[in-house]
């Protein structure tokens, strides 16, 4: 197969994009594959594309609900010295997507938002969206600490646990969140074991025998040579 044909086959199939990009494509091919990915056509059957487009076209949260979700998200994961906050990282849209993709979230989240609104009206005679940031924290403190919360706040605790899960996962799986957490993998053919200084911190080290037997990082792109009988010869 020549390279062009190769790429056509890859695009038709469901091979990971990392492979495509790392296998030395021409810029044109990369652009073409990126446009296919961006259009959501990559690795999807016609039926899946239909389901995805319908889901994306739907709206679950009202504008008012969306505002509360954003406010809660930013309280859970605010901007700090290291990174941006949840709303800027797109967590509100992520939660909108999740409730559509996993309908079992719809009732507890809609109900929980309403419950919080009721608490806000009962306590401060106004909506959660209108009360001051300090007042919001007074309410959130009633439901954010599962081990010490009052018994009549348990509905809110359960709701806030779910929101905390979704906000944290939404943030740390975003581009900014992954940068924040310091994930450094996703580098095909570049794994070289645990760095010596890290092992040392735990009182450990690789032994010479193992190191000798292991693939050297500089050899990781070499392709093995196979002999007539299927043996490795170099």
């Amino acid at each position: 197969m020549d390279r062009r044909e190769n790429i056509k086959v890859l695009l038709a199939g469901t091979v990971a994009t990392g492979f495509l990009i790392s296998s030395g494509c021409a810029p044109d091919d990369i652009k073409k594959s990126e446009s296919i990915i961006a259009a959501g056509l990559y690795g999807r059957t016609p039926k899946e594309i239909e389901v995805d487009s319908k889901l994306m076209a739907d709206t679950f949260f009202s504008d008012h609900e969306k505002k509360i979700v954003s406010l809660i998200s930013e309280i859970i994961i605010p901007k700090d010295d290291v990174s941006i906050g949840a709303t800027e990282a797109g967590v509100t849209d992520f939660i909108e997507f999740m409730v559509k993709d996993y309908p079992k979230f719809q009732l507890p989240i809609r109900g929980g938002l309403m419950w919080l609104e009721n608490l806000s009206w009962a306590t401060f005679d106004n909506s959660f969206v209108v009360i001051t940031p300090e007042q919001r924290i007074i309410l959130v403190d009633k439901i954010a600490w599962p081990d010490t919360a009052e018994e009549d706040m348990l509905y809110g605790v359960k709701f806030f646990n779910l929101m905390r899960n979704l906000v944290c996962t939404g943030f740390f799986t975003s581009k900014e969140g992954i940068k924040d957490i310091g994930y450094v993998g996703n580098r095909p053919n570049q794994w070289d074991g645990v760095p010596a200084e890290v092992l040392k911190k735990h009182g450990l080290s690789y032994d010479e025998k193992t190191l000798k037997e292991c693939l050297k990082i500089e050899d990781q792109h070499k392709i093995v040579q196979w002999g007539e009988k299927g043996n490795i010869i170099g």
Partner: protein
Amino acid sequence: MQKGKVELYTDAMVREVLTDEKGMATGVLYIDKKDMKEYKIGAKVVVLAASACETARIMLNSKSKLHPNGLSNSSGVLGRYLHDSTGTDRMGFMPELVDRTRYNEDGVGGLHVYSPWWLDNKKLNFPRGYHIEYWGGMGMPSYGFGFGMDTMRKYITDEVGNPSPNGGYGPALKNDIRRMYGSMIGMSGRGESIPQYDNYCDIDPETVDKFGIPVLRFHYNWTKHEVNQAKHMHETFEEILTGMGAVLLGKKPDETTQNGLAAPGRIIHEVGTSRMGDDPKTSVLNKYAQAHECKNLFVTDAGSFVSQADKNPTWTILALSWRTSEYIIDQLKKQNI
């Protein structure tokens, strides 16, 4: 390599293998998933590789005068001896791994670490053995990352040893998630089960799929051997995790859940449904995975397995397929099929 030698039919759902008056395979009948119509393809040799259960289904559904119980099934063992690996898991939190130095750790866990079976099972209350797969590390955050801080956050302590409160919000929560990254360690035991005649799949007499093809029913119970093995796995997990200084998460399961043994089928290593053997009375295929009663029919999935060690099946499927392929070429050359 030569091009243009293979014709591939996609979206083709095979319903049955067709046979002639001598009981030999003549091709397959399939439903085209796009137009939902029936088609036939003629063949000199038919190779089934639809995965263990689906191959048994196709063969059981291929009934004819000479194969009244399904194809090559006068022994009645087609669909029987279905078995899966045993499996159960445990997880721990490693305080020593809080605040880790970041580096590429994609290669840890199952990719590079694995404990093969190491004990003499003669002294144990179950036959055969199991291996342990490990997980953990600073992997790419995916959906679920950061969940559970309502119960897990207490494991993070400050400089003077005070635990964080469970739950919460704000910069302190954000920072605790960073600190916890890569500090969980898990173990999965995967073991060998004993194939049983009474564990089987057969054709459901009253249900079809959307192509109108009768579906399978499953009948499968673990024996005390597998249940005892799961108990042993959990004792081992606790010993290793505790020995490493991990805080055990969750509880050790007990008899009420068969010691946490995963339900049959959960480990997705289903094998054995068209077992090979020398005796046509107790097996469906011969040692080359050629059907005893239909010489031009072969099976190259895990249906042919008589047992599966504690290992995952794919490489054995590949090795046996290779062997069968060579045998088919040999037999065609000799004009035996």
